[in-house]
């Protein structure tokens, strides 16, 4: 079973992701922000990471940079959640090393498609 790490400060969004992902047979691990995400990554090796951008303590962009700088974790595909198809935000996410993105509110089918597109 593939494990997905979701990093989002919104409980609502975490729950929606969890539901959609578990319904599609993924194992879901949740983190509340970038700092928490980094902590969680010490203990698991997810197949894909889905992260929000705007978060307290450590935002999604910095989180991605930290993951990409980690030799052990750098190859994990990371999908960014964006609220709109904001080109600037996507560009910044790409620059930080995001593999792809998911537009909120997400269509569960597209979510799974996006994951399958990046998951090894």
């Amino acid at each position, binding site marked *: 079973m593939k494990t997905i790490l979701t990093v989002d400060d919104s*409980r*609502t969004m975490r729950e*929606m992701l969890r*539901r959609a992902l578990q319904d599609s047979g993924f194992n879901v691990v949740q983190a509340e922000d970038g700092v928490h995400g980094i902590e969680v990554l010490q203990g698991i090796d997810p197949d894909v990471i889905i992260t929000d951008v705007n978060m307290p303590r450590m935002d999604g962009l910095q989180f991605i940079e930290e993951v990409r700088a980690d030799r052990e974790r750098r190859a994990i595909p990371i999908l960014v959640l964006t609220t709109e198809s*904001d080109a600037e935000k996507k560009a910044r996410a790409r620059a930080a090393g995001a593999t792809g993105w998911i537009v909120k509110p997400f269509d569960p089918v597209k979510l799974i498609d996006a994951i399958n597109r990046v998951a090894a």
Partner: protein
Amino acid sequence: MDAMAEIRATFFEECAEQLAELEAGLLAIESGEADADTVNAVFRAVHSIKGGAGAFNLDDLVHFAHVFETTLDELRSNRLEATLDVVRVMLRAADVLADLVTVARDGGSVDAVRTRGLVEELKALVGGKKDAPAAAPAASDDGPIFAPMVGDGMDGLDFVPVSVDLSDMMDGGESRYRIQFRPRAELYAKANESARLIRECLALGSGEVTCDTSAIPLLTDLDPEGAYLAWTIELASEAGEPAVREIFEFVEWDCDLSIDRILDASAMAADDGVDPEIAALLARLAGGADAAADEPAADAPMAEVVELKPAAAAAAPKPAPAAEAPAPRKAERAAAAAESGDAKAAAAGSAPAATIRVDLERVDRLIDLVGELVIHQVMLSQRVMQAGLARASDVAVGLDELEQLTREIQDSVMAIRAQPVKSVFQKLPRLVREVADITGKQVRLITEGEWTEVDKTVIERLSDPLTHMIRNAIDHGVERPEKRVAAGKGEEGTVRVAAMHRSGRIVIEISDDGAGINRQVVRKIAVDKGLIPADASLSDEETDNLIFLPGFSTKEEVSELSGRGVGMDVVKRSIQALGGRVSIASKPGEGSMFTMSLPLTLAVLDGMIVSAGDHTLVVPLTAIIETLKPKPAEVRGFGNDQRLIEVRGNFMPLVDVARQLGYREEPTDALSGVAILVEAENGARSALLVDGIQGQRQVVIKSLEANYGRVPGVAAATILGDGRVALIIDVDVVAATSRFEQNYFSSGLQAAE
């Protein structure tokens, strides 16, 4: 509750938290205490609400949040200065946002004019800046979720993921595409893989893949993280070009990509210069090769590629046969369904949690059980004493330790329910804004001690009296700006709300720097309404406290607020119902301060255990002023069946508790009993005559209403050390029934529910 409803509930819970954060942040900005984090947090709050609202199709909320967010973004990026005017617009926008959330949750409608007005105001704040992307709010009208930002020069490149009906794009037939794809190192650095992309392409139809290895340098020159391969995919597919392009959605900036539709089938030809063996290998990708495809071929050209393996992503794709890909996925899903319980456990287990959310019922059950434990421990101790065991015996010592532990457990359990008063204080800024608006006054709110903790039941019931007192402070305390200026004060009045712990109780002070109580007016009203005799001699303090008398109301001017019919007597009553007290201190011209003190919990109560007519009763300690032994000269008959007692020159009713509660027909002998001097809710004093006093004790409050109902004169019940139920006297009712305020029924204490 189904899953979606649960998430919806979570969303609204979270909204409440974010609205609180939003307001707190804006207030911090207003008072100049904000830093960049504050602005970010404020932005994030609105952003999160918008995100969740979108998921539930709450369009009004999404739309407003979007406009709000756009303006906040200006603030965040320093394109808009946080002047007082700007922050005040945002505070009002926060109020509207809160209303929209409420309506989204509970139904109903919002003030559309107000909402529209604020949308305009918010837009105006952005519109005022010419260099800002002024079109953003406008774009939101078209569709807030997918609105592309205008003017960032990337429109041509940006792929807007809208669902496309492919049938419109095609003529029903198969199209041929030539996809030329040369990844750059960045593509791999972002954990994308060319093999996966190629596989996805081939999944759309059928085709051939050729690889250009000409750029692979000598091993010594090879950057393990470089990208040296280029691919050409000749694809025949029924899918439209957008579907093909979507595959490369994430990578188009990190590769050279061209997707051309080929009309002439003869154009399907392999590029020159491709190593035939690699071409053959890659061709197997399309041809449904088996697992052998995972094994790199041992041939020379591939060997170079294989050596790249540590930087695997760069050049050694591990493609799975496209045709088989969906099958294992399905199998995984089936397996996952069976293990979904484990998945949840794993998800929960791996997230380190500093806090847990517990159903309140469980905590209450625990509190009940600990209450039981305390009772049984006391019973056990009493039995041991009765059995004549020495205090120094092992059993007695062990029991002492048990008692210690039991108390500690009780304290710890009570602490679980303790919450900071912040949740109540959070609602005050909005209240102050609104009341100030209505009354035409300028008021600044200062809150202190918002982290002071108190039991949840107290928190829940703190809000109403606090609201009334703040309303009162603004309505009657703080003067209008012109009056203030005339009095040599600043135009803006201050209302300060402070919470603190003091001798085992929580004390909340509500003070204003207004005009203070006009004692002449208060006295005159009290006399006019017959609340006090015209010649009553009252201290300043006593005069001030007249405002708490039932029937007193200083409605000199009928404002929108005082029309609500809430007098300070009701406030005092509700505070006393919580086992609390309230008082006022005022200085003419300088302001007033209300002080209310409440028990930290409604689950236990300090009581005096008394006997009356063979029964044991509990009198709440908060109501008791003193106890005394009546002397013959002090007790007088009054009317046909009443008695009065004289205490230091004042006569007050002597209430025969046993008779009042129907325990006894004949009057209790006043001289052999004890008089407990109590103060009722209206400040009136009386003396409760009981047979004797057994002691003082903290008792666990038990609801009578849960299984029975309200009993006049009884506030609640408790369980004593002998396991029997004892009733807690509702002092207000018991005292009042022998007075003229017969219609005065107390709401009584309630056990923690």
